[in-house]
C-alpha cells in the first residue's frame, strides 16, 4: 500500500445527481480519484470513462486451461499410462471424456476468475481497505478527489464544485 493520502469527498443522496456531477467534473477536467456507490449504478463506468474489465479474457484462458488439463490427462491415462478396454470401446474413447472435460473447464474458469477478481481489487479474507464513510454501503453516493498535493485554494474550489453539483456533505479524510 502506498503512503497516506488526503481525500476530499462529497456525499450525494441520489445516483442521478451523482452521474450529472461526474459528467460536469469531466467537462471541467477535474481529476476524480474514485467514486463509491452502495450498489452498481448502471452506466457509471461509461460516464467515468473506465476501460472495460478484462476479467472475461482471464475467464476464457482459465477455462481453456481446464479443458486441456482434463482432456489431455484422461487421454494420457487411457492411451499411455494404463490403457484399459471398457465395454469393447477404443482406448481413446473421446465422447466419454466430454462430461469431465466440461466440468473442469467450468471449475478452472470460475475459480480462476474469482481469485483474479479479488487479487486485482486488492480484496480477500481480512483485507482492511480504508473506507471514507460508513454510509457509502447504505444510501450515500460519493465522489472523491485526491488532495494530498493540493493548495488550500484548489481544495476550496473542489469543495465548491462538490457542493454546487449537489453534494449534501463534504469532508476531508486521510486514508
Amino acid at each position, binding site marked *: 500500500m502506498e503512503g497516506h493520502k488526503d481525500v476530499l469527498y462529497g456525499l450525494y443522496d441520489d445516483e442521478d445527481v451523482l452521474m450529472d456531477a461526474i459528467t460536469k467534473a469531466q467537462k471541467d477536467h477535474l481529476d476524480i480519484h474514485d467514486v463509491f456507490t452502495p*450498489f*452498481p449504478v448502471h452506466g457509471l463506468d461509461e460516464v467515468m470513462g473506465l476501460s472495460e474489465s478484462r476479467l472475461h479474457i482471464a475467464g476464457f484462458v482459465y477455462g481453456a486451461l481446464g479443458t486441456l488439463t482434463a482432456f489431455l490427462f484422461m487421454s494420457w491415462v487411457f492411451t499411455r499410462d494404463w490403457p484399459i478396454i471398457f465395454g469393447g470401446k477404443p482406448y481413446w474413447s473421446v465422447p466419454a471424456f466430454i462430461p469431465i472435460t466440461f466440468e473442469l473447464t467450468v471449475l478452472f474458469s470460475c475459480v480462476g476468475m474469482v481469485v483474479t477478481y479479488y487479487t486485482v481489487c486488492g480484496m480477500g479474507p481480512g483485507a482492511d481497505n480504508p*473506507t471514507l464513510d460508513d454510509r457509502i*454501503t*447504505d444510501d450515500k453516493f460519493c465522489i472523491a478527489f485526491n488532495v494530498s498535493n493540493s493548495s488550500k485554494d484548489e481544495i476550496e474550489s473542489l469543495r465548491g464544485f462538490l457542493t454546487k453539483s449537489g453534494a449534501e456533505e463534504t469532508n476531508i479524510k486521510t486514508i
Partner: protein
Amino acid sequence: MSHHPIISPLRHTLITGDKTYHQITEDICAPSEKVPSTAWVIAFILSVTVLGFGVFCILWTIWMGIGTWNLNRTIGWGWDITNFVWWIGIGHAGTLISAILLLFRQKWRTGVNRAAEAMTIFAVMCAGLFPLIHMGRLWLGFFIFPYPNTRGPLWVNFNSPLLWDVFAISTYFTVSLLFWYTGLVPDLATLRDRSTGLRRKIYSFVAFGWTGSAKHWQRFESLSLILAGIATPLVLSVHTIVSFDFATSVIPGWHTTIFPPYFVAGAIFSGFAMVLTLMIITRKVLKLEDYITLQHIESMNKVIVLTATMVGVAYLTELFISWYSQYPYEQFAFYNRATGIYFWSYVGMMGCNVLVPQIFWVEKYRRNITLTFFMSIFINIGMWFERFVIIVTTLARDYLPSSWSYYVPTWVEIGIYIGTFGLFFTLYLLFTRVAPVVAIAEVKSILKTSGSQYTGLTKRKAIDYNEAAKEADHAHAHDDHGHH
C-alpha cells in the same frame, strides 16, 4: 440526464411500501442485528436435534455396516440414492434463479436469489452425504479422486457416469459457493459498516475489504455475468450427469435418452417448490413482505406450472415410447410402475407433480399464498416419489422373476433422511442470522424501476394493467400519427 424518476404503471412492482435506499438497508439488516426471536430459537433447537439424530444414524451405519439398511441383492439403490437425486434437484432452483434469470434480465430474481443460492449450497451438502455414506467405508472416500497412488498408479474409470457425477457435484458445489459468496460480499460490508466492536471486526474479516469503488463494481458486474454464463450450462450438466447414472445402464426404464431433459425439468420444478416453501416462511417471519412480494410468488408459480407440465409430458412420452418400442421388457417396466407393487408411489408422482400443479394456470390460485405453500410441499413429496419410482420400482422387478424383491427402509435409512432436513434447516437458520437474506445492493439497484412509488402503484391503489397498456398503445399510435 433526468432527475425525475420515470413512473410507469406497466412495470411490475417488486418492492412495495415506498422504500428509500436507507429503509431497504434497515429492513433487510434488521433480522441479523436483533436478538433471535423465540420462534427462531425453537426452530433452531428442533433442527439441531433432528440433525443430531441424523448424525447418530450415519454413525450407526458406518459402525454396524451397510447391512443396517434394507437394501438387498436385487434392490441395490433405495432411499439413499432417491434422497441424493431429490436433494440435488432441489439445489438447482438456486442456480436457475441467480444465473439463468440474471442472463434473462429478470428483475424479480433480486428478491429471492440470495436465499435461493444459500438453499442450493445447503441442498447440495445434504445430497453429497448420501453417495458418501452409501460407499460404506467412508474413510476410503478419497479413492474416487484421481490422485497419484502407489498401486501403479491405478486411475479411476473416467468412462464411468458415477465418476462424472463426482466431478459434476464437486464442481457445482464449488461454483455455487463462490458465486454466492461473491454476491454476498458487498452486503456483508453493509453489515460491517453498521456494526461496532467485535461484530465489526468479524464482518470486516468476511467482507474482504469491500469499499464500493466504481471500478470494483464494474468488475463485480462483469464477474457476475460471466459466472452466470458458465453456471447456466453447469446446472444443466449436473442433473444431466445425474440422469446418466441411470440412462447409461442397461435396465429397462432407465436406459432412455429422454432422461437428461426430463431430470433437469424435474430438478427446476422441485427446486422452485422448495424456494417457495422457504420464502413464504422467511418473508413472514423476517417481515420481508415488501421485498418478497406476491409478484415474486406468482412468477415462481408460473415456473412451477411450466416445469410441472414439462415433467408431465416426459412421463407420457416415456409411456408412449415403451408401447411404441414393441420391446416387452421396456413395456413391462412401465406397466409395473403404474400397476405393480409400488403403484402408490406412481400415483403420488403423477398426482402431485402433474395433475395438482395445473391449478396454477389460474391467476387467482397463483396469487394465493396459503395454497402456494401447500402446493410447494405437495410438489416436493411428488418429486421424491418420482425418484423412488424410477429407482426402487424399477430395480424391484428385474429380468429374472426368481430374484424379484421388495424393499422397505429401516429406521436407520429413514433417520438419515430426516437428519438431512435437520442439516438443511440448521444451516438455513444460521444463514438468516448472520447474513442478509435478500441481496441488499441488488434490490437497491432495481428500486427506481420496480419500487412501488415508481410503478405508480402507490398513487393508483389498484392498477389495471390492461387499461394501462391500452393507454400506452393509444399514446404511441397518437405519436406515430403526429409524424405523418
